[in-house]
């Protein structure tokens, strides 16, 4: 063989690895180095934005497993985030649990809530399931308001600053590290979950659930697993969000957020871990752009222009992506990579 061009894999393990070439590993280390040195040269404002992006990425990973891979559409993701967030907030504030125990407990509670509201998915799909998950969102928020003695109802609930051991995560930089660690872990897990037997079962269910059942995939078990995993991710994201503000409030989990998470998935590209990250980053940055442009526009046009700009631009972006780029940013990125890989001998088929 002597010398060869391009990436050649010599074993099955090599072929299956996520990071196959030296370039991949190099890029990974460069990125991680960049990510974890961010607090050294970024302002607090930038760190806040990146923390929020990290939380959104975790949440969208969960939705991606549930919707992008398993095909069970959920527009109640913010509701499940609220379950996880409130559970860990209550454990911390009322029962005095340390943060690092409360967070996984919160995630588990969200997962259990996901199992309960995932039950209808065994009988229904498509639009019906969307309605069931929208209902889940509203019922969860309503329940939180009703349980005023535990959750503080509409007034919210303040939570002590998170601490791991003796380190109190009070600064933005500390919390940024925590969220980024979780984001990287969540990404790695998400990427690997979909490559296991479970992940392949999810894909089979998404593509044709009847055919999957005939092949011997238990719909009952795998659909609920998808709900559980997706909602555990939501729970982690919700906990991180609440502990970031040290305050739990239902305003942090509005219905529209559930829609945006799905929007992020569409913009990024469904059924792709990279797509989930791309979508979350793209829409969050758009949000920031709107927050910057909004006040200028409000001053120039009308006071309500900023609020309407946010709604209209989000809506239009989702519409435009669905009509012109239904497979999302990830697909476009793959096309660009393929173009340069073949260049200058690419040809149209």
């Amino acid at each position: 063989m002597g010398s060869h061009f391009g990436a050649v894999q010599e074993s099955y393990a090599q072929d299956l690895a996520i990071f196959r070439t030296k370039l991949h590993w190099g890029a990974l280390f460069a990125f991680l180095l960049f990510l974890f040195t961010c607090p050294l040269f970024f302002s607090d404002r930038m760190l806040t934005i990146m923390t929020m992006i990290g939380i959104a990425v975790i949440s969208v990973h969960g939705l991606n497993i549930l919707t992008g891979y398993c095909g069970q559409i959920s527009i109640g993701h913010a509701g499940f985030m609220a379950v996880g967030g409130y559970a860990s907030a209550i454990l911390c504030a009322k029962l005095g649990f340390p943060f690092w125990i409360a967070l996984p407990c919160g995630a588990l509670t969200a997962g259990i809530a996901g199992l309960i509201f995932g039950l209808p998915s065994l009988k229904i799909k498509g639009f019906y399931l969307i309605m069931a998950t929208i209902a889940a969102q509203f019922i969860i928020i309503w329940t939180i308001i009703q349980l005023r003695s535990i959750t503080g109802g509409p007034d919210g609930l303040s939570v002590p600053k998170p601490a791991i051991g003796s380190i109190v995560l009070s600064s933005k930089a500390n919390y940024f590290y925590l969220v980024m660690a979780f984001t990287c872990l969540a990404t790695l897990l998400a990427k690997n979950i979909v490559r296991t037997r479970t992940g392949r079962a999810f894909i089979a269910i998404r593509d044709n659930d009847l055919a999957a059942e005939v092949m011997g995939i238990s719909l009952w078990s795998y659909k609920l697993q998808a709900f559980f995993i997706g909602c555990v991710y939501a729970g982690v994201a919700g906990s991180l969000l609440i502990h970031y503000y040290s305050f739990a409030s239902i305003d942090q989990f509005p219905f529209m957020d559930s829609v945006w998470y799905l929007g992020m998935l569409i913009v990024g590209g469904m059924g792709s871990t990279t797509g989930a990250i791309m979508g979350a980053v793209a829409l969050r940055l758009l949000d920031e752009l709107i927050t910057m442009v909004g006040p200028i526009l409000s001053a120039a046009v009308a006071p309500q222009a900023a609020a309407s700009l946010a709604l209209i631009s989000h809506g239009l972006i989702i519409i435009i992506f669905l009509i012109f780029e239904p497979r999302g940013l990830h697909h476009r990125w793959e096309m660009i990579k393929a173009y340069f890989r073949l260049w200058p001998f690419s040809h149209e088929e």
Partner: protein
Amino acid sequence: MTFFLQLVVTGFALGMIYALIALGFVIILKCSEAFNIAQGHFVLIGGYLGYTFLVTFGLPIWGTLLMAILTAIIMGLLIERLILRPLVGQPVLAVIMVTIALATVLGGLATLIWGAEYKAYHGLLPTINLQIGSISVPSESLIGLIVSIVTVAILMLFLRYTKIGLAMRATAEDLQVVQSVGIKATTVYAVSWVIASIVGVIGGILLGGVSGANMELAEIGLKAFAVVLLGGVNSIGGAIVAGIILGMLENVAAGYLDPLLPGGGLAKVFPFIVMIIVLIFRPYGLFGLVRIERI
């Protein structure tokens, strides 16, 4: 007993408006198999249009209805042509998601034009007082009841006796057969969106007459979904019956249970509880077709 009957009567009128709004949803679904999440936002636009034409332009009620219907026709045509037609044949999720996005755009437009403010105009609708025994029927409920019954009746006649109405029913039955006899499916889709936006806008004016126009009108759309699910998504009669049932149930439940619950607001979450129960125990609703799937 009087309290109960009072709740039932106002609930009946409210339910009829829900049924009207839900009809728009069912018609789009039957004709083009698109789930229109934006139905509630047609109601929102309707509520604000009612304010604009009644208060800002000072038109009488019939003039308002006429102008609102004209606006609704233009809105329906534009939405179908620009947003829905490029997605014909795409997966269910894409179509649902595009209507969700459409809903946010409509909400944004309403915020931009009317400033998301509360606009009341219930004093401007004509007042009719009706007293049955010890129950007094509020004027707004009565007007809502009359207008929605008339609209539903016109819609039924339209679907039964006009050429395009028959074409729409045929499309709901079998798209390929309809196309083979030379009916343009796109026309049918356009008309179904126009009808949905008209009934939404009329519903909006009626509800705006009861509670004033504000951004919460869009949530009525969610109640319409509960109605649709309860009645069976592809049944027009089902939507009417379920609308009335849900309107009455909601009013009675809120009337009796709200004082017992600390936070209140049961009327808001009630449709969702109905929705979940229906979805778990009878996913195809009271009158819906049970779909048999084959690979």
